[in-house]
């Protein structure tokens, strides 16, 4: 029961909403505005409209390099994590074995572990067994990081598929592998696509693990951070806007896939 739907209550809720929205979106709006401002400093009044900062980001080799690294790693992470997550989710839904709950908890555990702990422990572990910090390690660490999300996402979908569909395929002569490829995967195709995108975006803007597991290579978030700590450069606004637009576009596609939902019989 909603207590009191009077004007006062609604007014208060409206103010609360406006405040939350302002806290979230005002900084982004400020960033967008200043990315087109020719002024050197982040202060009003607005000077002249310019695309200069955008041009400058492309002249700095580190931005394109960081972006390329981030895209490459995030792509690899998303494909790997989604593939492993599918297998994992399928077994969690379809098989009964002792300790199944424990395995499920184990797979989902990284959700509850602070990122910084994952970052530190992976670095210590990999270095102790003789690996140099590198982008390859970032890839491994981020697969681990996005895995719970991917498993949860796909598991929910697989659990909705009536078991009889696969059983019907078996009775018609399909092996288990074939029934998975031809019956289960097509039934999950939107969830799989959405998972690919979501894990990509998570890996793309992940900073902590990437920072701990690299020495000299950079990803885009690392480049942004180093730029910020070494002195303010208004070009950062332009980078922010581009990353923001990129993420929003991916997010919209993912959301559309979720909304579309895999069709049920």
């Amino acid at each position, binding site marked *: 029961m909603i207590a009191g739907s009077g004007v006062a209550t609604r007014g208060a809720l409206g103010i609360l909403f406006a405040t939350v929205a302002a806290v979230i979106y005002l900084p982004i709006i400020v960033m967008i505005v200043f990315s087109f401002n020719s002024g050197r400093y982040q202060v009003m009044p607005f000077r002249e409209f310019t695309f200069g900062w955008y041009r400058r980001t492309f002249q700095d080799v580190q931005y394109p390099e960081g972006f390329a690294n981030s895209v490459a790693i995030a792509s690899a992470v998303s494909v790997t994590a989604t593939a492993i997550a599918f297998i994992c989710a399928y077994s969690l839904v379809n098989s009964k074995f002792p300790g199944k709950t424990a395995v499920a908890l184990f797979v989902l555990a990284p959700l509850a572990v602070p990122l910084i702990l994952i970052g530190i422990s992976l670095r210590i572990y990999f270095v102790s067994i003789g690996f140099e910090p590198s982008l390859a390690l970032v890839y491994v660490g981020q697969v681990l990081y996005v895995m719970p999300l991917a498993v949860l996402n796909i598991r929910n979908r697989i659990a909705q598929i*009536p078991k*009889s*569909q696969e*059983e*019907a*395929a*078996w*009775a*018609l*002569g*399909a*092996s288990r592998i*074939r029934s998975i490829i031809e*019956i289960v995967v*097509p*039934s999950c*195709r939107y969830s799989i696509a959405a998972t690919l995108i979501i894990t990509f975006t998570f890996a793309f803007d992940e900073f902590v693990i990437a920072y701990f597991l690299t020495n000299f290579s950079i990803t885009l978030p690392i480049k942004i951070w180093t730029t910020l700590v070494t002195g303010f450069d208004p070009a950062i606004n332009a980078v922010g806007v581009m990353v923001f637009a990129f993420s929003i576009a991916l997010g919209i596609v993912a959301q559309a896939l979720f909304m579309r939902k895999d*069709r*049920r*019989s």
Partner: protein
Amino acid sequence: MQVEAGAKDVELIDVSKSFGSVQAVEKLSLLVRAGEFLTLLGPSGCGKTTLLRMIAGLEQVSGGRILVGGADVTQKPPNRRDTSIMFQDYALFPHKTIIDNVCYGLKLRGVARAEREGKASAWLGRIGLGGFERRMPHQLSGGQRQRVALARSLIISPSVLLLDEPLGALDANLRLQLRDELRKLHRDVGLTFIYVTHDQDEALTMSDRIAVMRRGRIAQLDDPIGVFDRPKTEFCARFVGECNIIRAEIVNSDACGIKCVAGDIVLIAPPAREAAKLERGAKISLGLRPASVSVEAGGKASRPELASPGSNCAYLRIAECSFAGQSLKLRGVSNGGVALDMEILRRELAAIEAPAPGDIVRASWNGSDISLLASDSAYG
């Protein structure tokens, strides 16, 4: 069009299945003849679906063996068995077109596309769905999906078709229609059908034989007339059709029949077919269908204090009376307190005045309509 593979028999030998501590099927043996329409009939939880799934290979047996056409398939996975199964929810593949659904089994067998699509189209025509090839399952009605599922199961020419309550999800009229179609299809394809249902009407109208199941065992295996007319146990009598269960005490038993008394009613049942303990004084259960009882007006003037008017006959005071469409259902109680349910066709009521509560009627029945019921524990 004829399905080519020959029908095969299915033999279950001491098949058991337990889920944890729950015994779903208990040392069950059954021979399903080749080409037969056999129904596994029972309430939910009696193990009928589990049994069917074990024949399909979708459940592992806990004990016993399953033979199809004489070959032991107990350890074979479902895709290596000569059986096909149809599910209550039809389990059509939602992302495949109708024709791809029907074709799937042939595709798995490596049949070329043109050939399999030709066969599938022929099947679709046969089930009245010609022209539906490119539709998706969700565009079809329940009855249409059911037919597609049938075609998909039969196109691979299995030896045995297993049907798990295939009419359960349909509305009443469609169910009646599809019952006839299934029966006709069975005659046409000549396969062994094993059909699971909890609906006694479906079982009685469609089957060659019925296995009545209770608690993981077969309580009775007989043809529909046998199951209805000669129920073996109290459970069978109650589950298939309505039945009075009369607890009686034997007066004497000989080759002509069993004379027994229930309160103030004397019954003469036909002689027992099986050697049972039928000594004087033994307690037995008798089954008598309400529709087997004839009712005549006892007359409002009749004196209810009249004792039993003879054997297989009683004066009853009507306690309840309810309308059931074609017939009228009555419950009468004898002077000695024995209750009996009766069902009379309204067409026959013309002869007598419709009984009302409080009226006295004369009820009588043929001794041959009485069945001697074993206790349920004797048959699971």
